[in-house]
């Protein structure tokens, strides 16, 4: 087990002088203008390709932000197609049991903007959906999310304003779907070890925490 990571303080010197901030005009000057073809890829409704993508996506990152604009990104995942397409401009995302912090719901109550990034394992391109969202307990929506005999208690309805495919360069560079990349996970201590160190529980046994976590992970619905 790890106690203290001896590399942890070596990068902190940078806090003395912040990296310099540049304007958007300078950013634009560096990266250039997008081609018209790229601008034209943004649509305001789901076509059959977007629907097929969502129907095969088991994972998305959901970004929301609070009234001050402070953002938060939250992972959502289930069987492919767990996000339901209600019509060509409306989606519904089930809310499954989690940590009960309800960060996304609190954000949506203050600021209804939402950004989604859908991912399909093995696919380099991702689908991005932006729009406005609100929570619902509509029975006909929740009924479509029933899994293993359990209904979702809540769902997030997304009224989309833009949808587009995002190119695969980031996923190619990251080797995200290369099975060899999974060896990266071995470079991290276990979550039990991390939790004990983060919470200062020096006497605790990490394997006990890990068993508790594994037991928790068995009840996904």
């Amino acid at each position, binding site marked *: 087990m790890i106690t203290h990571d001896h590399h942890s303080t070596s990068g902190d010197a940078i806090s003395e002088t912040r990296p310099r901030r540049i304007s958007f005009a300078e950013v634009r000057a560096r990266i250039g203008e997008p081609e018209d073809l790229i601008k034209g890829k943004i649509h305001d409704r789901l076509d059959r390709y977007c629907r*097929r993508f969502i*129907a*095969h996506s088991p994972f998305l990152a959901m970004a929301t932000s609070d009234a001050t604009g402070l953002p938060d990104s939250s992972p959502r995942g289930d*069987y492919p*197609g767990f996000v339901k397409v209600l019509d060509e401009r409306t989606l519904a995302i089930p809310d499954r049991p989690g940590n009960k912090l309800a960060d996304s719901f609190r954000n949506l109550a203050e600021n209804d903007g939402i950004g989604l990034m859908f991912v399909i394992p093995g696919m380099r391109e991702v689908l991005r959906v932006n729009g406005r969202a609100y929570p619902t307990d509509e029975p006909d929506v929740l009924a479509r999310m029933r899994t293993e*005999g359990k209904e979702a208690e809540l769902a997030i309805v997304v009224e989309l304003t833009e949808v587009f495919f995002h190119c695969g360069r980031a996923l190619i560079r990251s080797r995200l779907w290369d099975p060899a990349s999974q060896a990266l996970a071995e470079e991290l201590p276990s979550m039990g070890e991390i939790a004990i160190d983060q919470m200062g529980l020096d006497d605790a046994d990490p394997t006990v925490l890990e068993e508790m976590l594994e037991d928790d992970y068995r009840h996904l619905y």
Partner: protein
Amino acid sequence: MQRTILEKAEPVAEGAVSLLLRGADGPLAPWEPGAHIDLALPNWLTRQYSLCGNPADRDTYRVAVRHDRLSRGGSEYIHLFLNEGRTLDVSVPRNNFPLLPAPEYQFLAGGIGITPIVPMLTAAVEAGASATLVYVGRSLATMPFADELRAAHGSRVRIHTTEQHGRPDFAAEAAALSPRALVYCCGPTSMLDAAEAAFPAQQLHIEHFRPVAKEFAPNKPFDVRCARSGRTVRVSAEDSMLDALNHAGFRIPSGCREGVCGSCEIALVDGEPEHRDDIGAPPGRMYCCVSRALSSDLTVDL
């Protein structure tokens, strides 16, 4: 599991398609009328569909699927995303709705509930029994296989459209029923309820394709003694027996996980089970995805 290729997906009524699945590795497992298969979909969902083709044809299975407005991802996937030519894994057929021998049969089908009834009616006629079918649907256009059935069985088939004629009068059907007849009914919950209210229980066989809403006492933990392996597995109140057994290393198959398909059937040796399924477990059997224990422990053949 058996590997099949989706040879044809074609509309058979408004909102209903039939799928013709050809065995990819030679003849498919045999089946009898009333049987269903699990169909493993590319979106990881497994769904149960009654076989509605010809049992003598060992090369293909036929099923029919209605696009459910409140689809959880099975029928919607089949209707919107499944392409012909794709390989699909299907289970060996199971029969929770077998056709028992009788001199007379009254079949009642509602909408897509016609699927198990199609081969049952043919088998009953071929066996020389007197058989009639009341086939209920909103309108003719929404009723799969209506033409096929009338062509094959003529006046034995009575089509009843509720848009024109309202609900069928099952009480009148029941009054005219021969005491020697068996009644087989498959359809929406409202129709199954009406059949249960009208027909004598000992003559009626029904098939659910959706769990019936039921109330049970709160879950209690119990122990499962596994007679063959000598192991004991604790099932907590939050766990299903299926999950606890699988977590303990037993490999119990499962399909619907809500007590309608029967894939997770296990043999019960001792103890008092609490059956929560909609199949009606035969003596000495239980469906461990939903069923639990009334006694503090159960002994099973594992």
